[in-house]
């Protein structure tokens, strides 16, 4: 099948510091790629490159077969939905208003969201199970609730590639599981998904492919069971890590 996201020998330097290099992978429609690695290794930077917020210094990247440099901001916005880590809130928008902003790339210059857009936003809220928050002020929500709102906003964007930066970071145990289920649901509907996580267990659970970034700038990618071994994880995180099987799931312990 055609790749909707393709990176070849991608590298990124900030100042004179090499953040990552030699990153190559592809994502097909319906596939989930999970990015793992210790803090500060450049996972978020990689996602920002994929969403077109940063530019690779080396290598090339294609979205749906098009080189990223040749796409307009609007086209990228129609194709990739980014769920950032929820940040400090600014103006006091309601949840409904926040989610409708996902329509920006689909709306003309002088237009505002209309009835179909309201409906899309409402459906996304429903899907995330937060329809009851629609009229609440976004800055007053908890970190986890904000995370769910941002996911709903990305769904309202109707992208073909969903990019999530630690979508489970602020969530309680039950919501983590729900978000992972949602991600799997979406991929079954044909969405490509790239997400970062700190829990290798999540990768075992949902990922078709994993990308493991290590401190020595080496990168390995492939099938989770092949890439995520006790040896490779211990080397990547610089600490002895053990894997166990429990009830058919792989669990990770330090």
């Amino acid at each position, binding site marked *: 099948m055609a790749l909707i996201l393709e990176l070849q020998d991608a590298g990124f330097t900030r100042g004179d510091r090499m953040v990552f290099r030699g990153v190559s992978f592809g994502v097909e429609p319906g596939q989930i790629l999970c990015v793992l690695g210790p803090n500060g290794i450049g996972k978020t930077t990689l996602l920002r490159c994929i*969403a077109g*917020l940063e530019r690779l210094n080396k290598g090339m990247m294609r979205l749906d077969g098009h080189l990223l440099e040749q796409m307009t901001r609007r086209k990228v*916005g129609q194709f990739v939905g980014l769920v950032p880590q929820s*940040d400090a809130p*600014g103006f006091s*928008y309601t949840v409904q208003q926040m989610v409708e902003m996902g329509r920006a*790339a689909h709306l003309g210059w002088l*237009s*505002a969201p209309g009835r179909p857009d309201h409906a899309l936003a409402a459906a996304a809220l429903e899907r995330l199970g937060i329809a009851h928050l629609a009229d609440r002020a976004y800055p007053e929500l908890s970190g986890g609730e904000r995370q769910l709102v941002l996911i709903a906003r990305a769904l309202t964007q109707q992208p073909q590639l969903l990019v999530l930066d630690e979508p489970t970071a602020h969530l309680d145990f039950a919501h983590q599981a729900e978000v992972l289920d949602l991600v799997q649901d979406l991929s079954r509907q044909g969405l490509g998904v790239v997400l970062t996580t700190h829990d290798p267990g999540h990768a075992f659970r949902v990922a078709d492919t994993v990308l493991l970034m290590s401190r020595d700038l080496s990168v390995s990618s492939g099938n989770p069971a092949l890439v995520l071994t006790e040896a490779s994880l211990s080397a990547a995180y610089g600490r002895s890590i053990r894997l166990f099987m429990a009830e058919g799931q792989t669990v990770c312990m330090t």
Partner: protein
Amino acid sequence: MRLLLVLAPATAFLLSFLVGRYPVEVGTVMRVLGAELGIVTPDWPEVVRTVVVEVRLPRILAGMLVGGGLALSGACYQGVFRNPLVSPFTLGVSAGAGFGAALAILLFPAPMVVVGSAFTFGLLAVGLCFLLARGGGAAPLVLVLAGIVVGAFFTALLSLTKFLADPEAKLPLIEFWLLGSLANAGRRDVLMLLVLVLPCGALLLAMRWRLNLLALGDDEARALGVDAARLRLLVVGLATLIAAGTVSVAGIVGWVGLVVPHAARLLVGADFRRLLPASAALGAGYLVAVDDLARSLTAGEMPIGVLTALIGAPIFALLLQRRTLAWR
């Protein structure tokens, strides 16, 4: 709420015709205005028409356009810079215009030259800010800092012109201009404001939903498919044209562009779809009302800039106390 936002400026508009030394009644005002539109046949002395149409109407229209323009422009600035403390004057437009006006008063003191010079130097100051901030990618904070630098530079130039000005004849004129006033607003000023404020304001209002995206910050806006830098340049450009136009006609009328958007946000919320029209309506009504005070409080004319500061600062302090100031 919507009704209030229409009624307040409309009432301020009508009642302002009654303020002044020559007494007129509301009914007369409405009939005189009707006669101008050809609906009513005049049955009153010519002096009534002169007072209502020639003297008071331009001043009231100028007040509404200046107030509405400043508040609209201020709301846009606050959203674009994601900062509750910026106003239309943040990028040095007032300092630049002040210098431009002072220079013109010094060299060619014709009214249109003063207005034109103030407008040109106001825009020049903002242009310089963008030039300075280019190194930092025209990021909001870099722009605000550039505004401080450019503002300080033009304020120094202004002090120089004041130092050189003849203290008997020219200096009072410069001082009076800097304090802000609508006393000299005539038909030509109203025309200039109409030509500037209406199209720029209409364009800003037309794209007001997009301003919400800029207020989320550049990264989020870009991730949602919006070219944030270009949109910001456009919005700041339009808002600056409005600010420069109002400053060149009315002098430096501070605090309106800062306080009125906050008041509007309290009333209708943060969504620019409602915030921008509300700010414009409130600003228009507010400035006309303050100008009525300026005309009637003392026998002479009070500078309107002094009044807006006297009223605006305590309101701002109140908002600060109640912590309603920031974004929520």
